[in-house]
């Protein structure tokens, strides 16, 4: 049986704009992945808990509030507590260019800003998941 890639799409923090998150969720669905969508205003604990129960390969975070430098380290910490370091984390939304290196340093796999083609994102996710399996 073909192995399905499972992705959690989550919106941490307090901004209420989830169009981007829904767009990505839909695009990954159309790319043949199983996407678990958790909805708005998720705490870092809620995201890590959902990722654990759903045993996802990838977590996509959509953050538009500017709070990414506060939220992302807490989410990475929660994932470490759950021993889920092997899960790849992607960040999308409004992320200033100068914050990207720091996010990557925290363990984020990639940052996708506005305008990134959804096809590119789904191809990247597939490539990274398959590569990690061969390890």
């Amino acid at each position: 049986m073909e192995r399905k890639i499972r992705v959690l799409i989550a919106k941490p923090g307090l901004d209420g704009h989830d169009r981007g998150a829904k767009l990505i969720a839909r695009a990954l669905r159309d790319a043949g992945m199983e996407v678990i969508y958790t909805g708005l205003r998720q705490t870092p604990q809620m995201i890590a808990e959902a990722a654990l129960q759903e045993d996802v390969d990838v977590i996509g975070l959509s953050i538009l509030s500017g709070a990414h430098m506060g939220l992302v380290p807490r989410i990475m910490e929660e994932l470490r507590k759950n021993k889920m370091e092997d899960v790849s984390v992607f960040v999308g939304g409004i992320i200033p260019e100068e914050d990207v290196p720091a996010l990557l340093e925290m363990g984020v796999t990639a940052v996708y800003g506005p305008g990134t083609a959804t096809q590119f994102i789904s191809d990247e996710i597939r490539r990274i998941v398959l590569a990690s399996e061969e390890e």
Partner: protein
Amino acid sequence: MKNQIDVNAVLAGDRRALARFLTAIENETASGRQTLDAVFKRTGQAHIIGVTGSPGAGKSSLVNQLVKYFRQADPSKKIAIIAVDPSSPFTGGALLGDRVRMRDLSGDEGIFIRSMATRGALGGLARTTSAMAEALDAAGFEMIFIETVGAGQSEVDIVRLAHTTIVVEAPGMGDDIQASKAGILEIADILVVNKADQPMAENAVRTLKAMLELGHPIVQSAAERLHHRALAFEAVEVTSDIHQNSEAESWQVPVLTTISTEGVGIQETAEKILEHGVALKQRGEWKKREAARLQEALHDLLIQTFLEKWQRESSSDFVQAVIRDMLNRVHSPHQALQILIKGQNK
């Protein structure tokens, strides 16, 4: 190793190990099957509750409220939820969105929620939903809620799996002829009209009650239900030592109203679920439903295994040639079958 499943950790309540076990089952891996075999003796404890109904009727919200209620009523009782959503027939992808309605349940270690896609199955569940429920049962979850895909009229697989089936309707479901059709309304042990604050709610309740008055659908036993689906073998019927007296025998399907976003009607629904569980046990029906479920599972495995055996043993070129003949209308599908069965193996 990512693919190894730690059975002891699963049984000890390690959530990460359990999550991986569920993935292995869903992907139908050898290690998943072996682990299921190893824990099978521990299963048969949980009360499996199916929640089905049309898309948007409020299944997820209702499950959210019910589980919250049961956890508050008895914090020692661990509860699992399997939420099934459809896979795309075109891409195989899926958007699993039931967790959105279940955010009240996060942060509670006594609850485990797992979303799953149907992966091509059509009966309202995925092929491995039953096996996943078994794993959760073995892991010590005393209640397992299974939310089906948004169901139409004939996605009734849940009745083969659940002890208690709840059918959720929203107001505006159609007239009494719709309610009298065979299928989804027949399988209900409990009927719930959700969104009871909407104007058509009273109508829906009246229609459903009228439908029930015409004849209660659930008077037949599980063993009788088996006969309506041809199994690959003659079903073994379990007899219960409990003597069936007519008083305890018939379960009256209740029609309840809820407003699940506000928690209205939840306590009554929860109590009916427990009552139904007790009634099943009193009537010896619980065992019969288990027996029906396990035999259905064996039937499905047999079919699947024979199919895989046939696939291994037949040459793809030969099969392709026969199919082409069928497409050119040289052979009918039934003739093609005869040729395939007789024909040239590898």
